[in-house]
């Protein structure tokens, strides 16, 4: 077993475990922490692929922005209690069954599928440096890039719209 493989299994284990614990822990704060761990391990995977830039961005966006937002909300709502009522048992059992079934189905399908012929691509070509990504993003993907700004704009207006108190009009 190569070190890479070991690293992969290790990271994967943590990813899955922390993801599971995110869902399973009763305290939302704990969930958030587990989620952060999960995100970090995913960043680890990115690093494993040698895409450092993406890993950084990932950490900044998810752990930095999204998780902060989550935590902020949790704090705001004062949710750090463990008093959540569970769904009825039948629902929970159903959820477990369905998810296991679904994983089994997906995995079965993928196992049964034709093995991908791993054609050796020349590893010399640069495909994931910051420069390459930047060029790609601002040339070919210029339109979606701009469009993403509209997306963010919409989200921004939306959030303002949803939270803004209305002035009673004259």
């Amino acid at each position, binding site marked *: 077993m190569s070190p*890479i*493989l070991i690293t*992969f299994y290790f990271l994967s284990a943590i*990813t*899955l475990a922390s*993801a*599971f614990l*995110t*869902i399973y822990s009763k305290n*939302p704060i704990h*969930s958030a922490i587990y*989620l952060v761990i*999960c*995100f970090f391990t*995913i960043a680890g*995977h990115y690093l*494993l*692929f*040698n895409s450092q830039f*993406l890993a950084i*961005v*990932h950490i900044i*966006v*998810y752990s930095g922005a*999204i998780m902060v*937002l*989550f935590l902020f*909300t*949790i704090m*705001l709502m004062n*949710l750090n209690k463990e008093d*959540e*009522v*569970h*769904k009825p048992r039948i*629902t929970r059992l*159903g959820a477990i069954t*369905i*998810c296991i079934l*679904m994983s089994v189905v*997906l*995995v079965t399908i*993928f196992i049964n599928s034709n093995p*991908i012929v791993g054609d*050796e*691509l020349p*590893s010399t*070509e640069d*495909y*994931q440096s910051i420069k390459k*990504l930047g060029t790609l993003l601002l040339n070919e*993907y210029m339109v*979606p890039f701009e469009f*993403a700004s509209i*997306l963010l704009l*919409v*989200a921004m207006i939306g*959030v303002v719209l*949803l*939270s803004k108190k209305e002035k009673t009009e004259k």
Partner: protein
Amino acid sequence: MNNVINEIGIENYIFLASLLFCIGVFGVLYRRNAIIVFMSIEIMLNAVNLLFVAFSTFRQDAEGQVFVFFSMAVAAAEVAVGLAILVSVYRNVGSIDIANLKNLKG
């Protein structure tokens, strides 16, 4: 540098992403705390992102990684909007238990 994916095997990443995705789905179904449900959805998105990068590396193609940026933008926007809605629900109901949202039915 050797392609990492060839060593680990793309299938493994597919399995990992699938499992992660399923865990996300499981969370959505399992919990009734809206914020945890959101988190589960984030896990799902991350699972997909992971797979994107894996494919990108496997194919030696940068587009997948570009797409991840968009996906992140979307995730951020969604979370922002979702939390805004969540907050206004919380203000009105005083709870973020999705099982309590049963006024509309029938």
